[in-house]
Each structure stands twice: as structure tokens, then as C-alpha cells.
């Protein structure tokens, strides 16, 4: 048989949210890239919830956008409802979430990929990685074609050795009944990669016409819509929105579930994979929180041109008959017709501690990975890793410094550091509580934090970069002006303060001090601030946050300075921990197994104590001098 041979720079395996970002990043940096998918119709598919963003995930999308990724732009083109969550809370936890038209989202992303220079889409299953001396040389497809390449980005999502479970019915398919990828795992194992098994699940989809929405509470989108992307104009996203609906389970629902637990593959022990605690199946909720007499159920549209509705909050792997009976106890779903059953899915993935924070494998040069394959969960987590893995694959080929975002720079940094440093027992989801410097890592300042990095890598244009420099300058000037504009205790000013329920001035104060008062704001102070020049909305937002939360922000900045010291202390890759006799055995084993790149990273490995870190510092000092 004649073997076909192709030559490219980068092969991206998988065209989900991680794969799309990875492939676009590589192609945009000028590298010949091919993206493989088992089905061209599943590009950027959303097999679970029909939304992008949400708490902390919204931050990720903003960061992807600031770095030059595609997800934010794509959802801005295809959303059907948008909400800023946590608006009543501090700016650090404001999070944007948009309902997507799933089919449109997928179609729009496919269009972007199809029109991207240097990028080829190929429908094929990659079943083997080719390497020499622990260095990637190419991939081989099921049909026998070899693609020689300099780097591979693995973004296989939930497809590897996937099986879906719906009660006793088990099918060996990927999500949505798609063809799984059954051959690649063996090739990965033979490269010395350790595999593990995770599971996740999704609820049923229902026919809109069979649902009685009058029994539910309607959930509207925001009146004023904020776009995800920093390059989308606000006026372009003020669309007519569709609604979601809220209803609740009840004791009847819970009884049905309890009476049929023995038929749940999880409780019957058929599922081996570890499931996520943050999107528990309805079975899990009923068992673990037995004292709750009801759980929320969100009915969300899957798109404008479909009748399918997503039943948020009720994912399940119970058999079909039990599913139908349980769904039908929920107010408004009494007559419901299920279009697609709820199911659980099991798949092969890795413990990401086999990776550097660049997302390159420690023991195979040129092999990168991102997304659910790395043990994460969620479209946004996947896209973020895909972008970084893709950028780093490209930058490495181009002989440039790869990008590692640290925990003080971005949620993406927290996400990747957690994945490659800590032991995860379940699919990892982003949460704002995981970010220790979250006051600095706001969704509103992702552009200020990351545009420069995207620009230096080559994904952000000169114009976008100049814009951000200008914005920075505006913010700085305005903050200074407010701090230096003194307001005397005149009758006019006292009257103004009284009118806004604010206490009287005893001595003169500057405008910044007044903004700090909870009852006052930048906008309100316009009346007593004649020197004010008109400024863009996003500049005013930054000015106000910087002033109002200055004390807290400064405290976190100090902590960051401490943190950075340890991050900068790099550990040589050939360090022999066995040689350091004063290290405790447990610490030694962990350090040998995970080879942290910096003292900072070492300090976050569980089982490594502060004393071990001191010992390590002393050892490094001695070694440096040798």
C-alpha cells in the first residue's frame, strides 16, 4: 500500500473549544497547521450547557480575548441572552454569562477556521503519535496518512475511549453519539504517558412544545448588554433576547430517584471514572443533600432555530424510564417529551502534572495538550488551555520564549498552575475562590493585564496595543487629577453631600476621598467637579475601581510582590533531589515525581513544607556558587 505523506508545522488533534483556539493561534503566528476532527460537523460543538461564561469562566473568556483568542468574539456573534452575574457584589466577582445559539456558535467558529490562512481542517481520526528520542516528529491517521510536524497539540476532550451511560444502556460513543477515538490512548501509553479516567454528565433536552412555561418563572437577560470581546462594539450587541425559565424539583421527584438508585450506573458501581462535585447529577444532589426538599431547574433554549431546551440542574445517568418519570414530576414538565436522554460519559485523560506550565509534556519535546484531556472541565477552561498550548507550540517552533502566566497575572495562570501542580481527583473547574489575588484579576481589566503579552506573542495587533497604552494613560491621569482636586467645605459642597446622604466635610478633602464613600460615586460627583473632561466609559470604570478599593488592591499587590520572589527562583531541570539529604522523604518523592520549575511552584506541592523550601533555597544557593 502506498503511504501518503504530508508535511506541516503543527498538528492539532481535536476541534473542540481547546483545539480551535490552539489551531487558530498557531496559524495566526504563521505556522502551517492542520486541525483533525472525527467529524467536521462537531467543530466548537457545545455538547453540554448552552452558555459561555459564568462566574470565573467569564473571566477566562475575557482573558482569552485579551491575549488574541477567538471565544469572546464568537459568542458576541452568536449569543441569544446575556447577563452580568454578581453585579451587586464587588467588581472582582462580576462575571459575564451568555446563552449561546449552539448551532450558530459552532457554525461561526467553523467559518473562522475555514477562512484562516495557514490552517487546514481535516476529518480524520489520529491514532498514533510519531516520535524520535522523546521528540515529536508527526502523527498517523487511521487511514494511514502520516503528517510530519514539529509539534502536536492534543485536544481530544472527552473522545478518548469514551463510553456513554444511560442506566443499563451503555454505548461506546463520544458525546452526542459521535464516533469516539479508540486508538490514540495506546499510542500515548507507549510514549510513557500515564492515563486516567474521568467522567461527567449532561441532562436531558426537551421539546419546547411539550413544556408548560406558565408554571415557571421567566428569567430575562440584562437590559444593557456588555460584550465579551474587548474589540466588539457595545452598540453591536444590543439585540432582542430570549428568556430562560426557572422551576423546581420536589419530594415526588426525589422519591422516584431514591427508589431507583440501584439502577444508576454510579450507585450500582458500573462507572469507575471520578465525577465532578460542582455539577453533580440530580441523583448526587438528592443523596448528598437529603435535607433539601427542592432543587432549582433552569430551562434554557439551545438556539433560535431549534425547539430543544436544556434542563439545567438535572443531569443524570438513570435509565430512560426513570428519567422520564422524574422529569415529569417537575412543575411545567408534566407532559414533557425528551428529545435526547441525559447521560454520563467516561473518557481517558491525563494527570496534568506530567506537563510544564507551558502545557508541553515534560518527557516529550514538541507534544502539547489542552482542555478536558488535561483533566479540566468546561468550554472556557478548555479554550484557555488550548490557546496557551497552541501559542507555546508555535512560539517554541519559532524559537521564541514560551508564555507562562502566573497566578498573579490571570485566571488562566491559576487554572494551569493548579492543573500542573496540584493533585486533582475530579475534572477541574475554575472558581473565583481559587484565585488568591482576585481583586487584581478582574474581568474588567483583562485587557490591561494581558494585551501586552498577546501583542508580544504576535496575536494582538499594533492598533489594539496602542489603544491599551492610551487607555492606561487616561486612567493614570484621571486618578491623579482626582487625588489632587481639593474640595473645600463650602456651602455648595456641604449641600451636595447632604443631598446624597453623605456626612459633612470638616476640612477640605480631595475628590478621590469622596469617591471612596460608599454612598458616592464618580458619576455623582460630576456636580462638584467642574474640571472634569469627558472620558470613555471603560476608563471611568477603571478609575472608580482603583480609587474605591485602593487599600485592598495595595495589600494584594504587596502579597504579589512576595509571591513573585519565589516564582523567580528557578530550579534547574537537572537538579538531583536525592542529593539533598536534609529534605524529608515525602518532600523528596513529590519533588522528584513532579519536577517543579520554580521554588514558588515547589511550595504549592502538597507534602512539601516551608522547612523543605528553606532547605531547597540553601541548596540552590550552594549549587549556584559551584
Amino acid at each position: 500500500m502506498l503511504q501518503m505523506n504530508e508535511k506541516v508545522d503543527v498538528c492539532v488533534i481535536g476541534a473542540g473549544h481547546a483545539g480551535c483556539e490552539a489551531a487558530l493561534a498557531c496559524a495566526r503566528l504563521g505556522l502551517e497547521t492542520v486541525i483533525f476532527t472525527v467529524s467536521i460537523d462537531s467543530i466548537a460543538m457545545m455538547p453540554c450547557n448552552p452558555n459561555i461564561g459564568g462566574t470565573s469562566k467569564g473571566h477566562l473568556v475575557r482573558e482569552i480575548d485579551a491575549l488574541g483568542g477567538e471565544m469572546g468574539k464568537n459568542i458576541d456573534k452568536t449569543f441569544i441572552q446575556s447577563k452580568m452575574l454578581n453585579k451587586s457584589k464587588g467588581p472582582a466577582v462580576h462575571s459575564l454569562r451568555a446563552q449561546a445559539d449552539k448551532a450558530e456558535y459552532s457554525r461561526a467558529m467553523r467559518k473562522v477556521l475555514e477562512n484562516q490562512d495557514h490552517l487546514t481542517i481535516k476529518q480524520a481520526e489520529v491514532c498514533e503519535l510519531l516520535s524520535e528520542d522523546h521528540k515529536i516528529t508527526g502523527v498517523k491517521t487511521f487511514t494511514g496518512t502520516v503528517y510530519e510536524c514539529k509539534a502536536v497539540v492534543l485536544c481530544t476532550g472527552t473522545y478518548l475511549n469514551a463510553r456513554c451511560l444511560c442506566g443499563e444502556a451503555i454505548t461506546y460513543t463520544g458525546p452526542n453519539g459521535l464516533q469516539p477515538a479508540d486508538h490514540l490512548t495506546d499510542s500515548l501509553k507507549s510514549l510513557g504517558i500515564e492515563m486516567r479516567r474521568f467522567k461527567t454528565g449532561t441532562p436531558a433536552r426537551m421539546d419546547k412544545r411539550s413544556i408548560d412555561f406558565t408554571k415557571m418563572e421567566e428569567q430575562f437577560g440584562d437590559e444593557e448588554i456588555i460584550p465579551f470581546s474587548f474589540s466588539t462594539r457595545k452598540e453591536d450587541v444590543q439585540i432582542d433576547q430570549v428568556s430562560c425559565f426557572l422551576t423546581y424539583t420536589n419530594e415526588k421527584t426525589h422519591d422516584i430517584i431514591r427508589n431507583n438508585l440501584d439502577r444508576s450506573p454510579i450507585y450500582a458501581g458500573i462507572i469507575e471514572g471520578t465525577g465532578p462535585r460542582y455539577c453533580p447529577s440530580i441523583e448526587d444532589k438528592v443523596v448528598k443533600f437529603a435535607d433539601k426538599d427542592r432543587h432549582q431547574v433552569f430551562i434554557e433554549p439551545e438556539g433560535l432555530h431549534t425547539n430543544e431546551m436544556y434542563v439545567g440542574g438535572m443531569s443524570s445517568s438513570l435509565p430512560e424510564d426513570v428519567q422520564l418519570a422524574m422529569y415529569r414530576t417537575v412543575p411545567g414538565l408534566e407532559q414533557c417529551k425528551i428529545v435526547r436522554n441525559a447521560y454520563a460519559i467516561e473518557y481517558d485523560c491525563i494527570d496534568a502534572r506530567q506537563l510544564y506550565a507551558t502545557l508541553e509534556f515534560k518527557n516529550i519535546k514538541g507534544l502539547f495538550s489542552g482542555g478536558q484531556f488535561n483533566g479540566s472541565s468546561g468550554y472556557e477552561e478548555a479554550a484557555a488551555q488550548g490557546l496557551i498550548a497552541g501559542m507555546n507550540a508555535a512560539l517554541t517552533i519559532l524559537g521564541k520564549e514560551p508564555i507562562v502566566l502566573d497566578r498573579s497575572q490571570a485566571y488562566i495562570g491559576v487554572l494551569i498552575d493548579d492543573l500542573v501542580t496540584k493533585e486533582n481527583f475530579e475534572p477541574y473547574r475554575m472558581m473565583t475562590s481559587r484565585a488568591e489575588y482576585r481583586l487584581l484579576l478582574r474581568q474588567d481589566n483583562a485587557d490591561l493585564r494581558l494585551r501586552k503579552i498577546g501583542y508580544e506573542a504576535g496575536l494582538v495587533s499594533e492598533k489594539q496595543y496602542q489603544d491599551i497604552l492610551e487607555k492606561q494613560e487616561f486612567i493614570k491621569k484621571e486618578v491623579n487629577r482626582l487625588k489632587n482636586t481639593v474640595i473645600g467645605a463650602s456651602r455648595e459642597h456641604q449641600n451636595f453631600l447632604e443631598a446624597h446622604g453623605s456626612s459633612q466635610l470638616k476640612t477640605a478633602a480631595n475628590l478621590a476621598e469622596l469617591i471612596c464613600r460608599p454612598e458616592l460615586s464618580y458619576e455623582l460627583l460630576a456636580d462638584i467637579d467642574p474640571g472634569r473632561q469627558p472620558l470613555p466609559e471603560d476608563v471611568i470604570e477603571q478609575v472608580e475601581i482603583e480609587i474605591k478599593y485602593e487599600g485592598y488592591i495595595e495589600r494584594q499587590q504587596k502579597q504579589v510582590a512576595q509571591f513573585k520572589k519565589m516564582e523567580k527562583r528557578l530550579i534547574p531541570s537537572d537538579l538531583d533531589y536525592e542529593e539533598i539529604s536534609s529534605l524529608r522523604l515525602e518532600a523528596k518523592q513529590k519533588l522528584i515525581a513532579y519536577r517543579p520549575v520554580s521554588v514558588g511552584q515547589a511550595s504549592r506541592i502538597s507534602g512539601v513544607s516551608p522547612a523543605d523550601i528553606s532547605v531547597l533555597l540553601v541548596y540552590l544557593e550552594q549549587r549556584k556558587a559551584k
Partner: protein
Amino acid sequence: MKTDTIAAIATAMTDSGIGIIRISGEEAISIAHSIFINKNNKKCLNTYDSHTIHYGFIIDKDLRIVDEVMISIMKKPHSYTAEDTVEINCHGGVFMMRKILEIVIEAGARTAMPGEFTKRAFLNGRIDLSRAEAVMDIIQSKNEFALKSSIKQLNGSLYETIKKLREDILYEIAFIESALDDPEHISLEDYPQQLTVKITDLGHRLKKLLDSANDGRMMKEGIHTVIVGKPNVGKSSLLNILVGEEKAIVTDIAGTTRDIIEEYVSVQGIPFHITDTAGIRNTEDVVEKIGVEKAKKALFEADLVIYMIDASVPLDQNDSDIMKMAEDKKMIILLNKSDLSVCVTEEQLKSNVSDGLKIIKTSTKEKEGIDVFIETIKDMFFHNEISYNDEVYITNLRHKEAIEDAYESIGQVAKSINDQMPEDFYSIDLMNAYASLGTIIGEEVGEDLVNEIFSKFCMGK
């Protein structure tokens, strides 16, 4: 916020003539400046040249003179750690050294971690590279010792108190965080008011803990002293006298069994951790046997043994057994019940025990001879015949700092609520409090929060 300037007592914690408190780091000089006045009542330490020594006084925050000292200044890089270093030569004496160290810490330094001066000296190039091995060993072993003693010395009930405090704090953080993470499921309406109540309670509990750290109750501090003797010789009466008369009783911590009672007593400023044991005698009674075994163990671990003899009853085999057990110990023998008809005399005893052993006639009933007894103890302490483990004291100081930090963080939460800051700001300081308390019982934060969120609150799509 605490600086990264460290302080510790550099000399042994015994009552030697001179004690040295060493401060090292960026702010060593400014900290020392703020607590030192010269003989003309002036704060002028920051005008002194490097490598000079000066006479003056240490003052506390109420500007009262605490001690007369010599203070030496060594500016970087010419000091042991190669950082700005100040050494305070004060009067020896455990209490003076402690007091001054505490003032230094109040002024902004933090207690040095075990081996930290050595580590800094090494990292700053002051110790020969060839000695790196030794430096690493020192750091590791000192830390392990501190950690072990920290938990071992922590009084049982306090361990539980701290654990409970942490649990309560973590619950609040988890509640806030789950509401932030899943605002459509969990609401924070009216939460600031509820949290105010909880914060007030947490503040009270931390304050109580701080008080106990202040008077040494938190750790098993003091000279480990055990009172032994046959049943009914007056051991408990002696303890009651020490406790009652001195009015310095710190607490009565219930012993691990009915038959061992521990008391913390400060006798004229010297801390004692006294264990009153069951009477030791040869017995077949099972319950009593256990008590006797415990008494023997306490005796074995003691720094000082007080052996009580009933002078009105002749010595027997049990007495000689006990004396044999305590052979290698510092011991004071009390010939008690001297108010009754005496049949055991000092002379008789002296022939039985080694030379130089102190024998005092007492009557716990009539409270006679007690003053002589106390004088004897004081003498022994000041002549270094008895001492106690200073690590325990240092650990206590570290713990105190941790509790203070937690207390401050809780205060910051109250301030945030008061200033109407958004709820997500509360969890920042609550987390700091949680982490600070964790250092006392050797527990890190790790994945605690995420685990708590998922175990206590039902969230998710």
C-alpha cells in the same frame, strides 16, 4: 502588616547575667529606634554609626522604662546575617528577655522561624558554602522539633478550640464563596448582618485565646514539677497552698485521668507546671495501679521532683522505692506534718539520700515552712539548678502572634462590613484568619475551602 524583620532571644533562656535579643532585617534599626531611649531620654538610635554600642533604656508602648540595656548596631552587610542587625544586651533573666522580645515584636518585627538567622546568613553569603549541609540540617531539625513540640505542648483543649474556630471561619468563607460562585442558587441577602453577629463571637473567642497565650496557659509552659509521695501525705494540700496563697493560679486543666491534676502556677514570677500525682505505693488494685504508673511517668519527665513525706509515720519500703526512682532528679524533700508528733527526722533522712539534697520541714496544715520552701525553689532557679525548655516559650510567642494576626483579620472583616464593602471582600480577611490559626496546629489551607464548599453547599448546574 508585619515586616520581614525577624527577632529572637539569642542567648540561652536561663538566668544568666546577660541576655541578648537579636533583630535582623530591613527595619531592624527603625524598630529598635522606636523602643530605645538614651540616658537623656531621647530616641536617637537611628543616628548611631555601624558597629557602635550604646547605653540606654528599652521603653514599652506606654513609654515606661522596662530595662537598662547596652545596644549594638551592625549595619549591612557587616553583620551575622548580612542584614541590618541590632542586638539588645539586657539583664539576664527569663522574664526580662521575654518582655523585651515581646516589645520588639509589638514594634513590628516577627518571631524568627527555627533556623532562620542561620538561613539568612547563608543565603546572604555570610556562611561558607561548604557548610551548606550543616545549615540545611539545622533548618530541618529545628523545624521538626518546633513542630513536634508545638503540637505536643499545646494543651489538649486548646487544640480543639482552635480547630473549632477554624471550622467556624471556614464555614463562613465557604458560604460566601458558594454564593459568589453560584449566585442564582445561593443568596447573600441579609448576610452582612448575620456575619456581624458571628464575627463578634469569633472576636470574643480569639480574645480569650489571646489572653490564655498571654499568661502562658496556652502552652504547657514552665518548670515541669511533679509532687510525689505516698497517699495522704499532704500533696494536694501543698498544691492548694501554692495555688491559693500566690493567687497566681492560672488555670486548672483537667488531667487526662482522674488521678493526675495539672496546675499552672507562677511562684514569685517563676512559671511552674505542677503535676499532682496519685500516691505511689505497691498495690494490687487495678485502678490505683494505673494511677501509680502515670505518677511514675510524670516523675520520669519532670524537671523538678517534690517528694513529700509524712513525718508522723515511719519510713517504709514504698519510700525507698520512690526515692530510688527519683535518684537522678533535682529533688526537694518536704517533711510534712511537722506539727504532729515527729518520727522521721532530717538526720535520719540524710543518711538515706545523697548529699546536698534539700530537706525542708513543713506543715501544710499550719502553713509552716512554706516560705522556706519557696525561697529554696527561687534559689535553685536563679542558680540554674532548674530550668525549663525555652522552645516552648518561643512557640507560645509564635502562637500568640498567629492569634493576634487572626484577631486583626477578624477586625478587618468587621471594618469591611461597616464600610459597606461588597461581600467578596469579607472572605479575603476571613481566609487570612483561617490561615493564621492553621499555623498553630500545623495545618495548611490547601484544598480546604473547595472541599468545604462542595460538602456543605449544593451548587451546580
